Each structure stands twice: as structure tokens, then as C-alpha cells.
């Protein structure tokens, strides 16, 4: 093995790889969950945190970590923090599960079915191809079109990728079924299983799975489903592939046969069904951080070191101090922090204190000034230690040792090296190939009969090239946003889009959220709102979003119980019909707020757990997802995030979906709802939403997919592509049948307006940085709703900036939604003016926006070449050229102008 000098890449490069998962709480004030249902009406928001995946912790965990941030090296004044560093902590956990391969007869003797499934949650892809009768080689071919299950994608000309899905039968497995005709000349189906999340491949004995369809196919060890027992080899997959074959069972299945498969007669085919299960292990990386800050306490001549981590549970710091760079552990003199024990006279062990609020823990350490360094490792349990790159964490305690940055640099290097390791190892891998090939070349011989061997070497290089290219492609492709390119459509649709689709309505919709968090209080909201119908319509709104109508455990309606009981705190069913009719009369459409993710139970099961439903939809615990232990559901695992305050409904169950569709259709017909606002759609797969929407054919639908934006040290990142991608992914899963609230845009507006950072309003490609920049027709822009604002204020829009927010969303593409509280406030006139600008200029959800300026203190854009707008205190005038602009409206720090004439 060639030695590799590991040279670190640069710190700035390193920094890009930080993981911010645990910083999400900066954004949202968590409501701690109280599992008594009635008292936790708002707890649903808790799920906005990105959860770590639930996993069973295996006994051995490999750990690694590396320092992450640059060190503050400004001159030290007494008492100043002179060292502050956040180290990521990485652990690998193994999730155990199994996959199965099943070959069975289909509807008749001629049609058979191969199924492959896996019960570990994840995005599984079956990468497969076939071998034809008469093929001696190992090459794959693409299967005939009719064999390909829906959703299959061709990979080059030799393979197919088909995603595994949960079938409706209520299986815990994600699976894919391949139907084939035994009369075809397919000799075998080959496949590997791929985990899209980790990029890992799962093979069988280090090679592709192979299911022979002719019984004398040459066996070469990777055949599955023969009469022989099923065998697996461990370790065939690289550790970086995150996938380990767990069991090493017998290998008696191997029959090395070199028998030629010659002319095959189809009648020789004899298939035998089988079902095999294989244990598999998926490794998941869990990332946490530990931050250390050091300052001098001039009064006591001590060094104060504060150690904080977001690890939870009992975290023990195993620590010592050292006097010089040799890093020899010493135990300092007492006193020690509370809950400290001396461990074998070599080190101290201090239990970290849980932080207030329960997220993570911390401890302050006091060390005499004489010591040069603080050494530690973190211990989670007997088997899990967290170290810094297999080394102890080393924190310099003297300001001088970090001032020249050299010692710090030294400390940083392992981290960087770690980051570079993979790069380097790959480099070395390639270098290895190059070297081997060189050797092949040098192994000069005149033996021409061996010519083909060099051919083969060449072929393996080309294979390698192709692999590398595929790898590069997959990264480039995923780092570039994947969204529907609307540009082409936009051109065609600059005139009013004729077709109405539930994702967009007509394209000219303007939403009004017709309630706030207090609306239930009067008990007659429907009647109060009815009075405002004419007014709202005349303001220019085309759609009103009504509060959730069902009987609910919480007065606001988001904890529904009996779905067919439409008596709520907002009014009874007749009043509801009344208000719906009224809005229809004034020409507006009505969105029903439907909560499909969870439902409160009527009865307890034998264990006293509330999971039995009553009313017309008297489901039992099979309708509840299995993975929330508090509700002991017997359904499948949730297809999305769980909302912990009520039983989450298992949409993978046929009867559940059938009932929901019926209910939605009933709402459509009986009440007259035109469309839906879908609550908490993070909780279940978007594909089910598509199912519901197709069954109910709404005029407009919008889903609430709310999770946190990404932040670095409390400051929002400029690039929120990952955040909007998650929303786009959901819309994609729903096949674009619904729009989604553009949470990304709201978040970016917060930072841009509040901190005078208007540059944030342009992404790297000069487009709007939210969902509206990528898929405008499906983005429902808003600045506030009943959760973020109103009396809850979970994520309130910066005070006083609301009109700038509206100036943005009401002039930009996307479908804007205006919050009730803002309409009936002192902002009313300004909002009215902006609504009228939008209507008069026929700005619609696909309007084109050209960002003219996105600087520190000013943002300016021209929409559809008709409306120029600017935000911020900075200066901007629309181009004077051949266009005349007339001023339309203006407020505090925003302005919008209209083009009078367009360039001819």
C-alpha cells in the first residue's frame, strides 16, 4: 500500500462541512411536549426540529471528530475569551434490519414476480438489469419495457433503477415488485440495492445479486434463491459504503460451475418460488458538537474553561491537564468541579450538567494558570467514547500558545486531515490504479497471445473512469437544484395560464388567511367572517382559507377527533355552510384546513393508551403508525415525521386512505369547500397527498411543510437551497398537485429585513432565494400565519417590517397569502395598494422577476418588465432608458413603480 502524505486542505474549506443540525432551535422556540393531549395544543410545532433518526445503538461505535472553526486569535485582554472552538462529534450507529428477495408465481404459470424489500427506513433503490439467455458474460442488459415497474429510471443502457415503496398491504418493508413473463428469454435478473441517502450499495457476496430464471444457469456464488442455503459474506463491502452484511451464514450455495450455457430451449425453464431474508446493517452517522471556550480570570489567576455540548444523557468528561506540548496527562490539584471522580489516579471524570431547557449539557472547569493545555475525551457509556481524531481533545490554555496560531494550527491539522482522508484515499486509490497500470506497461513481454489481458486491464480502467464520472455526476447533479425548470413554461404562460390545476389554481390567486389563533374565542367566527366577505373580495382576494372545521380536542381545531362532526368553536355546520355560501356569492373560493397527519382518539385500548377512534370513522389501532411508542399503533411505520401529541395516522393503510378520500369528498360536496390547506404534511409521504387530491379534484391546495432553515452560529446562511429543496421534494412527491407554503422565503425575509441584509434576497444564480425562485407556481408565499404570529408568535415576522414583506410577496411570483391580522390593521391601506398593483398588472404565480439589485441596504427587482419595486433604505431608481415609470405606492423602506410604456 502506498504511503499517503495527508496534507490538509485549507481551513476555510474545512469549515464548509460543518453540521448545523442541532442549531435549529435558534429559530423556533420549542414547546415542550406534554403528552396529555388536551393541554398541548401547540406542541405540534415541536416537530419542526430536525430529528435525529431513531436507531438502535449498537454496542461498538466508531468515533471520530475534528475541530471545525477557526480560532479567534485577537490579542488577549484579561477576561477575554481567547480560545473558542466547536468540534463536531461524529458517531456511527448501526441500524439492523433485513431485506428479502422473493420469487413467486404471479397470476398464472407464465407470469412470475420477483420482489425485493427492505425494512430499514430510507430511500431504497433497486438498481437492476437482466441477462439474456445465451449471454456468457456478466454484462447486464436493460429489461424489456413491460417488465419495468412504474417509476423506473434507465441508467445508461444497461440498468434500471426502481425505488422501493411501501405497498398498501401494510407491509413494514419498502419493496419493489418486478413482473416478468417466463416465456421471455431472460436468463437472470441481476440487482444491487442502493440506499440513496447514504449512497451505499448493498450486494450479495461482494457481487451483484443474481436470480436465475433458467435452472442451469451457471452458478458463481452470487446466485440467490437456489435450492442451496443462502449465504452471505461479510466485509465484502467497503466500510465507507456504510453497509455491512451482518451474518455470515453458510456458503454451501456456491457451486462453481463452468458449464457452458449453450443454446437454451425455453421449455427447459423450470422456476421454483422462494423467499429469502437477509440481515443487513445500515450505518448512520450521528453528528453532535462540543464547544470549548477558554478565558482568563484575572482576579483568581485561573483559567476558566467552559465546555458545552448538545449531547444529551449522561456525558462524562474524562480529563486532565498538561504542562507542555507533549500532552502528558496530569491531574490538577483540587478543587474539582462537582460530580468529579478521580479515575485510577490518571484522570478526572466529571459529569456534565444538563443545560437549562434540557438541550445538551455543559460544565465550567477551573484550571490553574500554570498548565498549558486541557486534555479530554467524552464518554457516553462504557463502549462509546468520543475523541478528536482518535486523539484526545487538546485545548491550549495559555493565550500565547494560540496567539501565533501555530499551536492552534497544529491542532487543527488532524481535523483537516480527517476531512481530507477520504479525498486522499481516493486519490491514492486512483494513484494505485495508475501505478498498477504503469506496472502492467512495464511488465513488457513479447508474448502476444496474452494481448487480451492488457485489453482487460484497459477495460477495467475505463470502467473505473466511468464510475468516477458517475460519482462526479451524481454530486454535481444533486448540488445543483433539482426542480422543474419552469423557464420554458413561463414564456408560453406569460399570458394567463388557461388550465386550472390544484397546485396553482388559475395562477392569479391571492389568498387570505381568514382567522388567527384567537378566532375560536367568540364561538361565532363563521358569522363574524361572513360579514367581511364582501370587503375581502373587493380588496382583491380570490381565495379564503378557513380554520379547521372539525370537532377538536383543542379549541383552535388542530387536534381533530370526529372528522364528520363539524361543530367547532368557530361555529356549527350550518353556520359553516352559510359562510361558505357567502364567500361563493362574492366570487371567492374556500380552502378547508384539513388535518390529516394525526387524529385524537375516543377510547383507550387495553393498556390505557388512547388509540381507538369513534364516530363514523371508528378505526382501531391499525390506523395508527407503529413508530410512536406513546400510542402503540399497529400500523406501519410513519412515512414522514411524527407529531408526538396525538396518534399519527398510518396513511399506508388502504382503509384509512379510502376513508379520508370519502371524507374529503364529503367536505367538497356537503360543505362546498373548493380546496385544501393541508396541515403538517411533513408527517406523511407526499404521494398520499397526491392520491387525496386526485380523488377530490380541488381547485387549489397548499401544504404546510415547515422545518427549520439552516443557520451557522445563530446567523442564517445565505444559501438556503437545502431548505427549499426539502419543500420542493415534498411538492414533487405530491407530483405538483399541491403548492407549499414558502417557508424559505419567509425565513430569508426575516434576516434580510431585520438586519438590513438585502443581499440575501438574491441567490447565487440571481434568482429569488426561496421556493419561489425555483418553483414559483407551487410556492405559496406568506409572511405570517396563526402559528408564527398571532398570539402564539412562534416565529414572528420582524416587527415593523411587515409592509416590506408584503411589498415583496405581493409583487413577486408565487401565490401570496395575506394574514387576517394584517388586513385588519393599520397596514390595510398599504396592503390594498399592493394588492391592486398585483391585480392591475396581472402578476401571477409564474411572473418573471429580474433582480436588479441585491445589496446590503437595497433590494430592487423588476417583475414582468412592468413593475419595479425596491426594498430597503438604499437608493434605487428604475432604469430611465426608454421606459417611463410612474410611482405607485410607497411605504417605510419600500417603493414600487409601474412602467408606463414598454420598450418597443
Amino acid at each position, binding site marked *: 500500500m502506498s504511503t499517503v502524505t495527508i496534507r490538509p486542505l485549507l*481551513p476555510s474549506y474545512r469549515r464548509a462541512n460543518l453540521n448545523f443540525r442541532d442549531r435549529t432551535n435558534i429559530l423556533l422556540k420549542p414547546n415542550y411536549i406534554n403528552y396529555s393531549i388536551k393541554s398541548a395544543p401547540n406542541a405540534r410545532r415541536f416537530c419542526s426540529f430536525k430529528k435525529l433518526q431513531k436507531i438502535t445503538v449498537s454496542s461498538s461505535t466508531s468515533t471520530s471528530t475534528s475541530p471545525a472553526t477557526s480560532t479567534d486569535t485577537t490579542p488577549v485582554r484579561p477576561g477575554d475569551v481567547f480560545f473558542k472552538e466547536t468540534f463536531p462529534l461524529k458517531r456511527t450507529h448501526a441500524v439492523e434490519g433485513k431485506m428479502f428477495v422473493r420469487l413467486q408465481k404471479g397470476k398464472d404459470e407464465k407470469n412470475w414476480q420477483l420482489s425485493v424489500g427492505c425494512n430499514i427506513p430510507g430511500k431504497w433503490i433497486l438498481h437492476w438489469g437482466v441477462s439474456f439467455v445465451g449471454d456468457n458474460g456478466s454484462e447486464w442488459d436493460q429489461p424489456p419495457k413491460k417488465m419495468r415497474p412504474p417509476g423506473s429510471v434507465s441508467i445508461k443502457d444497461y440498468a434500471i433503477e426502481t425505488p422501493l415503496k411501501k405497498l398498501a398491504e401494510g407491509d413494514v418493508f419498502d419493496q419493489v415488485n418486478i413482473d416478468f413473463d417466463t416465456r421471455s428469454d431472460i436468463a437472470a435478473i441481476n440487482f444491487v440495492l442502493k440506499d440513496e441517502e447514504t449512497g451505499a450499495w448493498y*450486494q450479495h457476496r461482494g457481487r451483484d445479486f443474481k436470480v436465475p430464471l433458467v435452472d442451469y444457469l451457471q452458478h458463481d456464488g452470487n446466485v440467490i434463491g437456489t435450492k442451496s442455503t443462502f449465504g452471505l459474506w461479510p466485509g465484502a463491502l467497503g466500510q465507507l459504503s456504510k453497509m455491512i452484511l451482518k451474518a455470515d451464514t453458510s456458503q454451501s450455495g456456491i457451486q462453481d460451475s463452468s458449464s457452458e450455457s449453450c443454446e437454451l430451449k425455453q421449455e427447459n425453464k423450470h422456476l421454483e418460488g422462494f423467499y429469502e431474508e437477509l440481515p443487513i446493517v445500515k450505518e448512520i452517522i450521528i453528528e453532535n458538537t462540543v464547544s470549548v471556550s477558554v478565558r482568563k480570570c484575572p482576579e483568581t489567576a485561573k483559567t476558566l474553561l467552559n465546555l458545552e455540548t448538545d449531547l444529551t444523557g449522561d456525558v462524562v468528561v474524562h480529563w486532565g491537564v498538561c504542562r507542555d506540548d507533549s500532552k502528558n496527562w496530569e491531574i490538577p490539584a483540587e478543587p474539582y468541579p462537582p460530580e468529579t471522580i478521580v479515575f485510577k489516579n490518571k484522570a478526572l471524570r466529571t459529569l456534565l450538567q444538563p443545560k437549562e431547557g434540557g438541550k445538551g449539557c455543559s460544565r465550567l472547569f477551573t484550571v490553574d494558570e500554570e498548565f498549558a493545555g486541557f486534555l479530554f475525551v467524552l464518554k457516553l457509556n462504557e463502549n462509546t467514547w468520543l475523541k478528536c481524531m482518535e486523539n484526545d481533545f487538546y485545548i491550549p490554555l495559555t493565550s500565547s500558545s494560540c496567539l501565533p496560531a501555530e499551536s492552534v494550527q497544529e491542532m487543527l491539522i488532524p481535523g483537516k486531515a480527517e476531512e481530507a482522508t477520504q479525498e486522499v484515499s481516493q*486519490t491514492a486509490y486512483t494513484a494505485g490504479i495508475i501505478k498498477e497500470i504503469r506496472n502492467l506497461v512495464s511488465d513488457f513481454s513479447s508474448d502476444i497471445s496474452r494481448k487480451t489481458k492488457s485489453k482487460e486491464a484497459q477495460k477495467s480502467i475505463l470502467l*473505473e473512469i*466511468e464510475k468516477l464520472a458517475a*460519482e462526479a455526476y451524481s454530486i454535481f447533479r444533486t448540488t445543483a437544484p433539482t426542480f422543474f425548470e419552469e423557464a420554458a413554461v413561463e414564456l408560453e404562460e406569460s399570458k394567463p395560464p388557461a388550465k386550472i390545476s390544484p397546485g396553482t389554481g388559475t395562477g392569479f390567486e391571492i389568498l387570505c388567511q381568514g382567522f388567527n389563533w384567537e378566532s375560536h374565542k367568540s364561538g361565532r367566527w363563521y358569522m363574524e367572517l361572513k360579514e367581511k366577505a364582501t370587503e375581502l373580495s373587493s380588496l382583491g382576494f380570490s381565495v379564503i382559507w378557513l380554520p379547521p372545521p372539525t370537532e377538536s380536542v383543542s379549541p383552535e381545531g388542530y387536534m381533530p377527533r370526529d372528522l364528520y362532526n363539524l361543530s367547532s368553536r368557530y361555529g356549527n355546520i350550518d353556520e359553516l355552510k352559510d359562510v361558505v355560501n357567502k364567500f361563493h356569492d362574492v366570487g371567492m373560493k374556500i380552502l378547508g384546513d384539513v388535518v390529516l397527519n394525526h387524529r385524537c382518539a375516543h377510547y383507550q385500548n387495553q393498556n390505557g393508551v388512547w388509540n381507538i377512534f369513534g364516530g363514523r370513522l371508528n378505526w382501531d389501532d391499525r390506523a395508527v403508525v407503529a413508530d410512536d411508542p406513546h400510542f402503540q399503533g399497529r400500523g406501519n411505520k410513519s412515512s414522514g415525521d411524527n407529531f408526538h401529541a396525538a396518534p399519527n395516522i398510518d396513511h399506508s393503510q388502504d382503509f384509512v386512505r379510502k376513508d379520508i378520500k370519502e371524507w374529503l369528498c364529503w367536505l367538497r360536496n356537503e360543505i362546498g369547500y373548493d380546496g385544501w390547506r393541508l396541515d403538517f404534511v411533513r408527517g406523511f409521504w407526499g404521494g398520499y397527498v397526491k392520491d387525496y387530491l386526485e380523488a377530490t379534484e380541488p381547485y387549489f391546495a397548499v401544504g404546510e411543510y415547515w422545518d427549520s432553515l439552516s443557520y451557522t452560529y445563530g446567523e442564517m446562511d445565505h444559501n438556503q437551497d437545502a431548505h427549499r429543496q426539502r419543500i420542493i421534494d415534498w411538492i414533487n412527491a405530491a407530483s405538483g398537485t399541491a403548492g407549499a407554503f414558502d417557508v424559505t422565503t419567509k425565513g430569508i425575509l426575516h434576516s434580510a429585513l431585520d438586519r438590513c441584509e438585502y443581499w440575501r434576497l438574491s441567490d447565487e444564480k440571481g434568482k429569488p432565494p426561496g421556493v419561489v425562485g425555483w418553483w414559483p407556481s407551487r410556492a405559496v408565499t406568506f409572511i405570517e400565519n396563526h402559528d408564527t404570529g398571532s398570539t402564539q408568535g412562534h416565529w414572528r415576522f420582524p416587527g415593523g417590517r411587515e409592509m416590506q414583506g408584503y411589498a415583496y410577496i405581493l409583487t413577486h411570483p408565487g401565490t401570496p397569502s395575506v394574514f387576517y391580522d394584517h388586513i385588519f390593521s393599520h397596514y390595510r391601506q398599504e396592503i390594498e395598494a399592493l394588492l391592486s398593483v398585483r391585480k392591475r398588472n396581472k402578476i401571477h404565480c409564474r411572473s418573471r422577476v429580474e433582480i436588479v439589485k441585491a445589496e446590503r441596504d437595497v433590494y430592487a427587482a423588476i417583475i414582468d418588465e412592468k413593475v419595479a419595486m425596491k426594498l430597503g433604505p438604499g437608493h434605487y431608481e428604475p432604469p430611465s432608458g426608454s421606459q417611463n415609470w410612474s410611482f405607485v405606492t410607497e411605504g417605510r423602506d419600500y417603493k414600487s413603480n409601474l412602467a408606463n410604456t414598454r420598450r418597443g
Partner: protein
Amino acid sequence: MEVSLMGNSQANVVKTGLPYRDSRVCCSYKNKIDDKVLFVNRVSFLGQNRSANLRKAQLRFCTKASVQSQPLPSDRDSGPLSSARPKSLDAVRLFVGLPLDTVSDANTVNHAKAIAAGLKALKLLGVEGVELPVWWGVAEKEAMGKYNWSGYLAVAEMVEKIGLKLHVSLCFHALKQPKIPLPDWVSQIGESQSSIFYTDQSGQQFKGCLSLAVDDLPVLHGKTPIQVYQEFCESFKSSFKPFMGTTITGISMGLGPDGELRYPSHHRLAKSSKIPGVGEFQCCDRNMLNLLQQHAEANGNPLWGLRGPHDAPSYDESPNSNSFFKDNGGSWESPYGDFFLSWYSSQLISHGNCLLSLASSTFGETGVSIYGKIPLIHSWYKTRSHPSELTAGFYNTAKRDGYAAVAEMFAKNSCKMILPGMDLSDEHQPRESFSSPESLLAQIRTACNKHGVEVSGQNSSVTGAPGGFEQMKKNLFGENVVDLFTYQRMGAYFFSPEHFPSFTKFVRNLNQLELHGDDLPVEEEVTESVHTNANMNIQVQAA
């Protein structure tokens, strides 16, 4: 010894039937004879294991080939084999451009993993090196004289480790897509002092680079742009000293918009129209007008120095929409036209001269070659007045060769010329644009030949011009000698299944790595030895 795998040596391997020492494992493959023979493969263990750890990778090779590791006898390489190489093998050095935003404005490497994998693929493919755009707006982003090369150094290191060469393009312009602006402090100066930018007849500014008229004016905090460029180059040189002449073999000096020696005459073209307009003269900023005024007075025609041509069409318009470019009797042929065009084009050439001599003197002793890029403005080439070239600053018409002076200027500075558009063919241009990329390319190359300027090629279309690869091959073979060819550009499309196989084929064709009939794979019986040891269970995919 450096071996480029798919290039020279590998070709020889095939031709001379070099064997490698086989052990137990071998492959059988389909007997496909088409060009895709090497790419009809499948997912195999080899690939899945690529991210596996080194040890396994090593083992795989050990298993497979009983690797010999004695050094290569040097005479093998330089023996008769070498002389048998086709000429083009040595003649064309192929580079591939890295993504424009390889280094982000925060000096981090974008898509580092993808680039790392891509570099390896290119290395294996036998590509000589990569081209890296180095942006003024990234490296000197914050303040004048405050350089941050860290991102670029990281890339250089990656490239060096892989064993590729690096061609650096110093970019003193801004880019819209992806958005790479000028340095912040330059933009700020521009806010208050807009005359540092080019301005067209209607007063619209082009803020993508500085106007050549301020080259020698102390507009940047008391320094002239030339001084600032010079210091940038000096800083680059000292920061990249370890790479100079070894990994870095060439440096392109940014000369204007898109790095090309030209005026930004076409920057406001509507994207919708298929037929490019003639563009506009960019001489209406205060400093350009001053120069024009001086020149006019020196020529005894002070009135000619008041403004640019009054009868030139605007950006999107065709030559005949106004009288300046009319094929017959257009003002371009008048004494005024000649006066103006001579001045306009000579300004550009002296700007180029200034920057290239700066680059030559700065990098002269580092062992790297210096390049400058010329645009290939091929629309309206078949008209008499060549309006698009005129507005861009090349006084090239049916009556006058505008490129001789340019080539001469390159020769004087011992610089090589980068010519884009080697993938463009006449037949794929819209008829109405009177375009001829091929003839223009030929004209420029003739001028270069005459003055002994070496030409290096590029393709223009990043998403693949129709027939592009064929055209490139045509341009690289035959009598056309090309110093190197830079293929633009690495990214998602480049590695996509639609594109990468054709690129590979292009590279192989470029190196004339055609297989002889008897080199084609034969069906082979497969034997396999099965290892029970997990770590040994690593083999090339066997049938």
C-alpha cells in the same frame, strides 16, 4: 515516468500487445465492436467498492494482477515505440475547464468531492490537465491588496496530487451566471465613479469589467487598474510559487469581458432572438471620449472626437437598420469611419499589449506559458463590413485584415493565443446571421501562423454545439497545429450520461486509440477462485 493511461502509453500497450501478468481472475465480455465497447458495462463490484478503503483497493489489484513493482526500464518508453506514435498524440494536449465557480466567494471549494472524482476520471482518461478560472472578485474581494488564495491553493493541491497540469485563467471580469462579481471595493468605487465602466451610446453601462480607458488612470484608490492587475499577478506568483512551472504550466491573462480581448459590444443582446444583432460601440464613457477627442484633435478633425458614430444601429439590430454598416456606401467606408475604427481598434490592441506584456514580465521566468484569449465573433462575417467584429474592436472587414495586428501584438509579447469556437461549424449557424465561424477561425489562424503565434483551442458551447465533437476533431487534426485544447467545462452536464461517453470517445479519437481487429476482446472461459477471507473477497467483477 508519467503515464497517461488512455493516451500514449496505453495506446502502445494495445498496439504492441503488452501483456500483463495474469493470475486467476479474468473477465469475459461481450463481443461488441462498436465504439461503445468499453462503455457498455454495468454496475459491478469494482465500482461499488470505489469508496472503500485503500487496503481493499490495493488488495484487489494484488489479487488480480500479481502486481509487479519494479521500476519501468526507461528505454522502454523512449524506444521505437515512441517514434511510432501518431503525430497528434504529442501535438494535442487536452485540458478540461473546471467549473467557473470552483472556488466560492467565501474561498471554499465548491463540489470538492465531485471535482476530486472528476479529476481522477480525467487523469485516467489521459487528459493532460485542467483549467482553473481565478477570479479577481474572489481572491481580492474584500479590499485592495488583500488577497485570499486559500480556495485556489486547495484546488491546485488537489490537481497536483492527482498528477494533472493546471492552466490558470486570471479573470478580471465579472460573471452573471454563476454570479461572480467584481471585487466589492471595485464595485463601490464604481458606484461613485461610474466612468470606470464602459458606456454605450444610450448611456448604459457595462459593469462586468473596467473600461480600457482607465487602464492608466489612478481610479482605484490612487492606483491605476494596470498597477492593481500587476500586483494581483505578483501576489498570485508568489503564493503559487511551489506550483509554477511544474503543476501550473500556463496562465491566461484576462483581457476584458469574459476574459477576452474585446469591447463588451454585445452584452445587451436579447436572448430570445436567434439572430444576434451587430452590437454597439462602447466609447461613450467620459474617459473614452477624452481619448477620442485627443486623437481627433491630433488628426486635425476635432469635430470627429465629440462622440462615436451617430448612425450605428443598436444592439439587437441588423447591419442594415442604420447607415453605418451598410454593405455598400456605409459610413464605415468613409474617411470618418476609417478614422474612428482605426482608433477604436488600436485602443483595444494597446490595452491587450499592456496586459500581456505585464503578464509576460511577471511570469516570464517561472516557466509557464502566457496566453491571451481572442473572441470568435462570427456573426455577420459574410457581410462586407463585419459589423459585429467592428463593434467588438476588431477592425476586420472585407477590405482590411484586422487580426494581423493582433497576432503581431501577441508575437511581440511571446504569448500564445486562445481561440474559442473550435466546435462551431458553418452549417449549424442560422443563415440569416451571415455567420461563418470556420472562415473567421481560419483567418485568425493564418494571421497567427504568419507571426509565429501558437494557437490553443477551446470550444464555445458548454452544452454541446451540434456536431461539435466532429468539428473539434477537424480543427485539431490536419495541418492545424494546436498547442493545447481546453474543453469547456466540467459540471453536471459534462459528466452526464448524455455527454460523458461522447467526450470519452472524443478523447480516444483524439489520441487515435483505435482498436485493431485482433485486439478486440474474445470470449473467454471464466475461472474464478473464491476467497473465503473477507478482505480477500475483492475481485474484478467476474462473470
